[in-house]
């Protein structure tokens, strides 16, 4: 079996019924899809299979042999966040961050499909199967709507990623 994950093609050696989630995380070391429930209930494992959001915990890898998979690692450009990423960042739509990969993948698919501004009920429908225990959802829905309207700043990705916390500048401080 072969998968193209975030543009890179790989030969897969896991058994055919292995959930795509485990292939991504454990065989390919692509760890942004999370194992929140492993039974289809929470949405943290959502990835795009040929552009469509799918729960990777319920998808046997054999069922997507040859497909092109996009995970959060493959969203945005090397130095610049995508509009959905930038909106989640700027509008505080990620708290603990555990649901964020699944949310951003589903939101990205929605906006790509619509090709223009998305309305609140469309966001609710697209993210309906995604749990977030931290935010209360309001900021997430606002972020997706803003991203679809291009109402986001131009957020540069940070040069520092794995090695420690990036330094933060305080903008708009009253002091």
């Amino acid at each position: 079996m072969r998968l193209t994950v975030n543009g890179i093609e790989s030969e897969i050696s896991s058994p055919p019924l292995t959930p795509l989630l485990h292939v991504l995380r454990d065989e390919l070391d692509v760890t942004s899809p999370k194992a929140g429930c492993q039974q289809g209930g929470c949405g943290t494992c959502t990835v795009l299979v040929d552009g469509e959001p799918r729960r990777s915990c319920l998808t046997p890898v054999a069922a997507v042999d040859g497909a092109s998979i996009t995970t959060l690692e493959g969203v945005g450009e090397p130095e610049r966040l995508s509009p959905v990423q930038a909106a989640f960042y700027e509008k505080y739509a990620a708290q603990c961050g555990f649901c964020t990969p699944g949310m951003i993948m589903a939101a990205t698919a929605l906006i790509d499909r619509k090709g223009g501004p998305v309305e609140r009920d469309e966001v609710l429908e697209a993210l309906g199967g995604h749990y977030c225990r931290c935010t209360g959802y309001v900021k997430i829905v606002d972020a997706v709507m803003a991203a679809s309207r291009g109402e986001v700043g131009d957020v540069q990705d940070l040069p520092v990623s794995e090695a420690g916390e990036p330094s933060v500048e305080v903008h708009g401080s009253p002091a």
Partner: protein
Amino acid sequence: MKAVGARLPRYDGVGHVTGRTRFVDDVRVGKTLWVKALRSPHHHAAITRLDVSKAAAMPGVHAIVTHEDIPRNVYGHLEALGVPGDEPLLAAEDVRYLGQPIAAVAAESEAAAQAAVEAIEVSYEEKPALFDIRKALDPDAPQIHHWGNVYPHYGSYNHRRVRKGNIDWAFEKADVIVEGVYRPQAIEQLPLETQVCTVVPEPDGRLTVYSCTQAMYFSMGVVAAHLQWPLNRLKFVGGTVGGGFGGKVDTATDTICCLLALKARRPVKWRWTREEEMLCSSTRAPWHIELADAVTSDGWILGRRTLTIHDAGAYARFSPYGLTKHAFHHSGAYTIPNLRFDGFVAFTNRVPTTAMRGFGVTSVSFAVETHLNRVAEAIGMDPWELRLKNANRVGDTTGNGVTLKDPSTVPVTLAAAERVGIELPAEYRAMTSDPRGGDLLPEHLAAQQNLSELNGGGH
């Protein structure tokens, strides 16, 4: 003051939105073994036989631990605060809740570990179980611990007490007595990241613990106590928690992973399934709260009697501390000069309960605020006015004798009324937190304030 009032970018925000934040489950260490636990299938039982020899001989199994492998098999989170540990890390003689861990296996894969768990030979003798805290104090209730069904260490009492003023006088003087029973239920914190831990044995004999704990130093102390090790042999890596909400204050996985890593001499990882998280992780405590308020027909709360029972589940964990906070808050944000509070931490055969947002306080606040609405209804007074009249003012004293210097009940209540579009009478809108006087200082409150001055302010 660069931060207050500014919209600060989250320091971890870019990591979250790019998928690069490394949660415990994302840590990659070569040759890691997987952990699974044998858990009690009964709510309450004696373990009559435990034999892991067949399981240990199974393919792919590297280590099994039971209570015999633990240098100190006592889980005592609050020992430093004087709360004695009462919980085994792995059950030895009795199991007291469904899902209680008895043994843990480290093996090459999750499937191999699970197969070994199923091969452990164990038998039980079931005991009657107790689930209703209202029955915990009955003489014929099933006994959970050999010392009984309540946590017994509140000084010389077996329960938390608050005594203030003269409660009998208040109930004699009252025009109306309003009673109510409130029973907030257990709630699972339900973080999206289940309990997870990776432990790596280092070449220098130390252990590196990748922990999802909400409380690094608590967990470090708990692990060190179990292992009987000095803290400097443990390196904890954490701070990236995929949601906790109180449930990750308990040290659920760290020590068992340490023991298995030491025994197997390999890195080990334990990631709870969603089912384990729902069935076996601690919850917010259920409570049984009885309130009786002695009230005058013009809206003064002269006194309050409280009986509260906190369901600790099978073991104490943080419950004695939660009940103390509960006791402190049982008069709410209001001044009540005569109080009699009795609070019990009761044991049942439910999963042990622990912290969750506003631990011990949200339960009693729910009861108090609901009760105030009932009081208002009983005397035919607007509930906002009842609250504003009795709201804490500068110079009022709390149930535990603290004289308030900067209470915020009045401005907060007025702001809340405004936000929800309630038009209060002008005399109420003009209220402040200033010390009581005139109509707001009836005789019974004046007497209390004089007393507090005599006592030097009651600090």
